[in-house]
């Protein structure tokens, strides 16, 4: 057991967990933030994507202990307040970028990450780029078309 401390959605959290605890289990089971999902559990589907120190990572493929001292953002922490939605969440809603919604938290976290990376690098996030960037996020309902539209729309709303 190790006491693992990190900042999650702006709040300092500290929990004693077994060393083999995955970050996603720390988030879901210990912090009860269940918006982050486990889909495949084999690093393929991206339903578990969260931001660690500003980078999108698969929380099912990282130990909680490796996030000691990190700033973590989950889907629960993207909006400015409890009553608000993040512009990317609004874009998914308006563009029908989800059906069952299981993959959506990971999609949103991957989307905001790609927008900020492309902005920082001065690159254009056009449709082919969005499709390429979604390599690690799998949706079994939508066929991706509206997800891609939603991300393009959300990117313009984040500007």
């Amino acid at each position, binding site marked *: 057991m190790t006491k693992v401390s990190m900042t999650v959605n702006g709040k300092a959290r500290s929990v004693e967990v077994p060393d*083999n605890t995955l970050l996603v289990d720390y988030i879901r089971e210990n912090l009860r933030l269940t918006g982050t999902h486990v889909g495949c559990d084999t690093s393929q589907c991206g339903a578990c994507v969260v931001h660690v120190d500003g*980078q999108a990572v698969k929380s099912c493929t990282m130990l909680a202990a490796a996030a000691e001292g990190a700033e973590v953002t989950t889907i629960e922490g993207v909006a400015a307040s409890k009553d608000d939605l993040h512009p990317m969440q609004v874009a998914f809603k308006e563009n029908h970028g989800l059906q069952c919604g299981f993959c959506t938290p990971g999609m949103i976290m991957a989307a905001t990450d790609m927008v900020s990376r492309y902005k920082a690098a001065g690159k254009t996030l056009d449709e082919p780029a969005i499709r390429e960037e979604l390599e690690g996020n799998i949706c079994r309902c939508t066929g991706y078309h509206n997800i891609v539209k939603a991300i393009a729309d959300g990117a313009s709303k984040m500007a």
Partner: protein
Amino acid sequence: MYDTTYYRASSVSDATSKLAGTEDGKFLGGGQTLIPTMKQRLAAPSDLVDVSGIDALKNISVEGDTVTIGAACTHAQVAGSSEVAEAIPALASLANGIGDPAVRARGTIGGSIANNDPAADYPAGCLGLGATIVTDAREIPADEFFVGMFETALDEGEMVTAVKFPKATKAGYAKFPNPASRYAMVGVLAAQTANGVRVAVTGAGNDGVFRHAALEEALGANWSADATQGVSTDEGDMLADIHGSAEYRAHLVGVMAGRAVDNS
């Protein structure tokens, strides 16, 4: 996942001495292979010594004709480095094609080559460019480092600290990724180096990454995609699985070699 004991190393000497004191410990880089392997209970290290936080291993530097990449540099860091893009564009492009964005944010070059997965990209990059693997104890030429499938020349407890890449006159990488895993079904790095043309193939060989003498000879005589046509690859040396037969992979080697030259 079986129980394990996690330790975050602060320096290379801290990491190696800590590992030496464990029963059956392993170094942990970004964990993009080791963690899934442990989740499947295919590996059960008693201890994990996390080396991904060692600052001294996170640098990329270019001095003269040598690009040195610290072992804990992530694929995203290498892919996004303007220094790498300028010195060896093929290496930046190789790093940018590994896995997916979230995997590239965590996975490291040291972890990739120490694991020597037969379908990983970096082994082809190191072997094709004629890199030197730097460890806590010595320097190992890539030609001697990649011994076989999941096997390297690393001794017990020896740790990769950096990889030195000589700049190539020309180099290109092309891979045919498995559509699900993004691992190479065949990946070829072709380079014109100070020591002649080198061609390394990953994903295809039944004993891991290998150099392709016939392609090196053909491209040494004529650096063009056309020169790769008609160069045969022995099917007996190829992997065969549900994703592709040995015959299919042997054919893809030539096709990817041509594309690698086109990308150079």
